[in-house]
């Protein structure tokens, strides 16, 4: 089948303003949007720039705005978005070229929540053991692949880039509720800032955007709850 792919193009060295490129592509309905982008880059316009790595929904490189929703191009089938497919770079991050955005502000927020195990206790002779119930508390948030689809779908983040954003809160949640970690108090303090978890307006865009189907808004609510109960 033939589909029309409309791509928001921008080359800072040539274009003053972003512009819409339109491409007719012959694809199967079971192809992915990523295949259509490949086809355009390989056979129609080699200057088209986008990120992708594994192509199987694990690396999180090809998050972009497809028909108005943040999706991984490698996880969206043509038949679900045809016949006209609109592809834009993620919102809220500076565009470097075409569909490639500067992820640094995103990763800066990620680093701000100290996304590593904090535990100064001497390590036990073998593993730090954990019961299945203890693991269950943060199981959902371990699935994050840092694709930024959630954070860049969040109107609170669009309006104020200083907001730490859903992805960073998910990553903080993954350690705050880990029984082996001892940094919960520090992380909760960081998320208690005005640009921390309280900037969340419970819009649920993040939950809708997540390609890993993490219940992000719920995770944010659990962090808010932990903060409230630590003060009551």
């Amino acid at each position, binding site marked *: 089948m033939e589909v029309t792919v409309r791509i928001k193009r921008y080359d800072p060295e040539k274009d003053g303003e972003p512009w819409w490129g339109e491409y007719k592509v012959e694809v199967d309905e079971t192809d992915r949007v990523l295949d259509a982008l490949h086809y355009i880059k390989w056979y129609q316009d080699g200057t088209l720039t986008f990120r992708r790595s594994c192509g199987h929904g694990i690396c999180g490189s090809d998050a972009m705005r497809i028909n108005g929703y943040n999706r991984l191009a490698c996880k969206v089938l043509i038949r679900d978005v045809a016949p006209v497919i609109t592809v834009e770079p993620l919102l809220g991050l500076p565009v470097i070229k075409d569909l490639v955005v500067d992820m*640094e*502000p995103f*990763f*800066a*927020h990620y*680093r*701000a929540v*100290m996304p590593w195990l904090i535990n100064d206790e001497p390590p036990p002779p073998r593993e730090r053991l954990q019961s299945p119930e203890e693991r269950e508390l943060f199981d959902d948030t371990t699935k994050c692949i840092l694709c930024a689809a959630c954070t860049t779908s969040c109107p*609170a983040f669009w*309006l*104020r880039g200083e907001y*730490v954003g859903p992805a960073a809160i998910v990553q903080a949640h993954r350690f705050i509720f880990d029984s082996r970690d001892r940094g919960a108090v520090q992380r909760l*303090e*960081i998320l*208690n*800032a*005005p*640009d*921390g978890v*309280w*900037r969340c*307006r419970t819009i649920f865009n993040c939950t809708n955007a997540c390609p890993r189907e993490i219940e992000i808004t719920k995770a944010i609510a659990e962090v*808010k709850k932990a*903060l*409230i109960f630590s*003060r009551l």
Partner: protein
Amino acid sequence: MFESLAARTAHQAERSGNFELWAWFFMRVSGVILLLMVLFHLFWMHFVIGVENINFAVVAERWENPLWRIYDLFLLIFAWTHGANGMRYIIEDYVHAPGWRVTLKTVLLLLYFALISMGAYVIFTFRAP
């Protein structure tokens, strides 16, 4: 420039204390309370009294009972604090120029205290003629 972000967030947390935390908590609690109070208020005014019957005499008679004055005072405080904090959220979200931000928040704060004081003044000092 972004490495300082963690430090800034921590600094911000220290400086602002728990204000946003309590503001958020207040919004939830007052939301639930308001739901009940406003529904009861509407039920009383519309069905028990009837909108067509509301006039000065009805309000004056109602305020003979101090419990109604307390009810109305709490309704005023909860509704206007909840609403004003919602407006503060909107300013925080949408107004980024520091000058405008401070100006609008100051106006909102003054308006908040002015209306709370006026309402409370009437509720406490009203005497039926």
